[in-house]
């Protein structure tokens, strides 16, 4: 089969390559541990690997004031007795201490979604890990650029 490269073909290949690059970036974020965030995640999951997905972490791309950064964490789940999110751990890899918060849900929560305001000392990754009632783990991370750091630095 002769390889005919017309304009449409080139565009499709380009788009595929782009999305592949974006996917690669999302699944293997550079996690240089500057604090205890990795240990916290390990302790939380008991060493089990967490799968990317189902967790949604909403944070501003650029936070002007690191003292109060709005954050929304939500996890896709039917939240029934059979299948629900039991806990969500949120850590930041560039704060003096890694831990931000742990949220505990139950089927009575109805929806695994929480919004709060957090402190970020510098530009860094925020990572959320969700624990399901069946013992599986899901994760998501977001980079946040911080202009003025929190934590009184």
């Amino acid at each position: 089969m002769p390889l005919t490269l017309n304009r449409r073909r080139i565009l499709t290949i380009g788009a595929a390559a782009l999305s592949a690059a974006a996917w690669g970036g999302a699944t293997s974020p550079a996690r240089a541990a500057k604090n205890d965030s990795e240990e916290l995640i390990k302790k939380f999951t008991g060493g089990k690997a967490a799968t990317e997905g189902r967790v949604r972490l909403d944070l501003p791309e650029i936070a002007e004031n690191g003292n109060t950064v709005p954050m929304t964490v939500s996890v896709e789940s039917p939240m029934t007795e059979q299948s629900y999110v039991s806990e969500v751990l949120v850590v930041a890899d560039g704060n003096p201490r890694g831990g931000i918060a742990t949220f505990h849900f139950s089927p009575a929560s109805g929806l695994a979604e929480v919004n709060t305001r957090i402190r970020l000392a510098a530009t860094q990754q925020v990572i959320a890990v969700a624990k399901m009632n069946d013992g599986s783990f899901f994760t998501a991370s977001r980079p946040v650029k911080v202009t003025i750091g929190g934590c009184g630095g």
Partner: protein
Amino acid sequence: MAEVKPRIKLDKKQAKKGDLVEVKALVAHVMETGLRKDPSGNTIPRKILNKFTCTVNGKQVFSADFEPAISANPYIQFKFRAEESGPVVLTWIDDDGSKIVGEDSITVT
């Protein structure tokens, strides 16, 4: 800081069974991280609200463990599924063991 009165808002006072009710709560607190220093170089001791729980008619629907990375005057917004009428009680526990309690109520029809 004994006279702290949290501000609590439910998005509805009456709900049908199974409806999602959104709770927004704001409480005044310094959330001192324990990492800052005062002008003379002494570390300011940590003082944060480290635990938050919400019960509806006595049943826990949501709770959270806070670390010093939670902003001053902590704000929290979450949802619960309306099952039965009753008081909605929000409790924050301070590092020193004191409690801040706020209450609202929900009517389920």
